């Protein structure tokens, strides 16, 4: 029991993150050797800019998956928020700042709806978010009738295309998000409660963890971040289309899972997710620079995803086997290397 609580107390820097770090460093070295344009500040900042939208949504997604849930609707929520931003400004006459607020609010509402159904009516998260995946995309398509909105005023592009102290503006938001979500998951009661829910929901409930309220909060956060990502996305590409963010939920989930967050819940870190995001973006960029086409890159990412999970799974099995063969210290390793002796 004491080991369990220790497991919950410390964020895990386990075998998986180490594996990822090694892959990441190897990838960096190889890519730097293959292309002299890769390891330039310009390129790296540019890549950071490109991964911000997926990255922002990956933060609350880490929380959601750590609790054993999933949110497939984020890509569609992004599309819905983007359309609401553009349409409320262009067609309904909202002032642009109000339109931005409206889009963020719509994202939060979308996430809240997911959370409400999941907690109050016990709809499985997979089903609920498949339903809203269709619904939110449908709203985006229905409201816009597939027309796009463009011609925003110049100041609007500051977030997506401008820079602050030489670093793209949205990257500051991303850094802040990493910090906030990382600290919450790693060092607060809330983060511990998230892992407790994913580890054993009934147990968490009986221990007095407000499971439903926490879930409602994290699904709402997930929708809100999709709204924020929509704002950044629209600002970056200067236009609003109803198909924005299509399939992005899979990129987000791939990054989170690649980062070592268990799809069964209970285990995961924001640091791992950041590593997953970096690795995917590096692969995309590096392969593109070395002349590999984007579509082959998707293939590599899929392979890396499966391979990394396989490696971790094998490592865990061997450890389990070792544990099973040594019954005198069955608990000693349950922290999975989270505690250094």
């Amino acid at each position, binding site marked *: 029991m004491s080991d369990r609580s220790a497991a919950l107390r410390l964020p895990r820097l386990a075998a998986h993150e180490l594996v990822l770090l090694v892959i990441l460093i190897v990838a960096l070295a190889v890519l730097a050797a293959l292309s002299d344009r890769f390891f330039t500040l310009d390129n790296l900042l540019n890549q950071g800019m490109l991964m911000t939208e997926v990255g922002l949504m990956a933060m609350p997604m880490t929380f959601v998956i750590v609790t054993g849930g*999933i949110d497939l609707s984020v890509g569609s929520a992004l599309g819905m928020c983007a359309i609401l931003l553009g349409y409320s400004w262009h067609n309904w006459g909202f002032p642009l700042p109000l339109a931005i607020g409206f889009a963020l609010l719509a994202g939060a509402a979308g996430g809240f709806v997911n959370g409400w*159904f999941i907690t109050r*009516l*016990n*709809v*499985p998260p*997979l*089903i*609920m978010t*498949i*339903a*809203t*995946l*269709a*619904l*939110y*995309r*449908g*709203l985006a*398509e*229905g409201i*816009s*009738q*597939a027309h796009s909105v463009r011609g925003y005023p110049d100041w609007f592009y500051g977030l997506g295309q401008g820079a602050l102290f030489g670093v793209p503006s949205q990257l500051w938001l991303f850094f802040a998000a990493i910090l906030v979500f990382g600290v919450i998951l790693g060092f607060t009661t809330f983060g511990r409660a998230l892992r407790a829910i994913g580890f054993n929901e009934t147990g968490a409930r009986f221990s007095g963890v407000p499971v439903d309220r926490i879930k409602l909060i994290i699904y709402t956060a997930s929708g809100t971040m999709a709204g924020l990502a929509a704002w950044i996305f629209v600002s970056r590409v200067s236009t609003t289309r*109803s198909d924005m963010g*299509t399939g992005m939920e*899979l990129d987000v*989930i*791939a990054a989170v*899972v690649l980062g070592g967050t268990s*799809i*069964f819940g209970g285990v995961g870190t924001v640091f791992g997710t950041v590593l997953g995001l970096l690795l995917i973006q590096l692969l995309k960029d590096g392969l593109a620079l070395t002349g590999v*086409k984007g*579509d*082959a*890159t*998707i*293939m*590599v*990412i*899929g*392979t890396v*995803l*499966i391979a990394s*999970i*396989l490696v971790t*799974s094998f490592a865990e*099995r061997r450890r389990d086997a070792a544990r099973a063969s040594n019954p005198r210290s069955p608990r000693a390793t349950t922290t999975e290397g989270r505690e250094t002796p």
Partner: protein
Amino acid sequence: MSGAALTQPAPRLRLSVSQEWLLAGAIVVLFVVVGLINPRFVASRNLQTILLGNAYVAVAAIGMSMVIVSGNIDISVGSLIGVLATVSGSLAVAGVPSVLAWLLPIALGVVVMAAQGAVVAYLGLPSIVVTLGMLSILKGGLISVTNGVWISNLPDDYHLAQWSLFGVVPVPVLFMLVLTVAAAWWMRNTATGRGIYAVGGNAEAARLCGIGRQRTVLMVFAIHGMFVGLAAVLFATQLSVIQSTVPPNLELTIITASVVGGVSILGGTGTVIGSTLAAVLIAAIGSSLIFVNLSPFWLRAVQGVLILITVLADIYRRRRRRGAR
């Protein structure tokens, strides 16, 4: 909850029956209402378009339902259909006899899905992750190999839909009907078929009854691969030009059909008759939007609401049943 799965088959059967009647009723109501607004909707020509154009969704949903009943999910199905349709079309254009152009993709579907099933069953990786990875591999692989080229000049005898039973039921629709009935019968009346429900409902109890979880999951994925292969062939043979890309959102349409058909995502319940009816209902709704002069851009929103209604109705019924006990 899961403990009750094996001991109380009767309420579950009644539940699945009512889900199917509900869907059948919804289809009838839809046709009557839309038919009154616009009689052309119920013209046999339109009915045939709906059924012919969506038989492949229903066929793929049969396999998907089995996968979901066994407690797994397959996100790669849309990409695999895209790949297999391209393979089938390329073979046909290359002069391979049409029979082979139909059968080889099916075999390939079995191989790919069985490989995924083996990873899920024997290496213990979650199916959602494995099939997510496979989705990327297939999608990326397809476009980088073919560059999204269009396959045209398909031989005349390649198109399955030109034949029909008694001149009324086109071959793809025939496949849909026969396979649905056969799969439903098999899942309900054979030990192996019922094993899928057992594994999905309670893997531990199933194991104690002598039903191997791993073997069952591998088998389910292999069978699913066969249905996916056939779905790809039905999809490819109804086109005059095959675009070698992945049909967008196809996996979601197929999963939606299974779920609206009453297959519980938690595993252990649902029938393929429900999923086929749901596939028809979804297709009919899409078609009806045009006939009542609604923009087809609202289709996805309607689909989303439909899933929600289904899920809520299911929850309501479960609660009432629990209350009645």
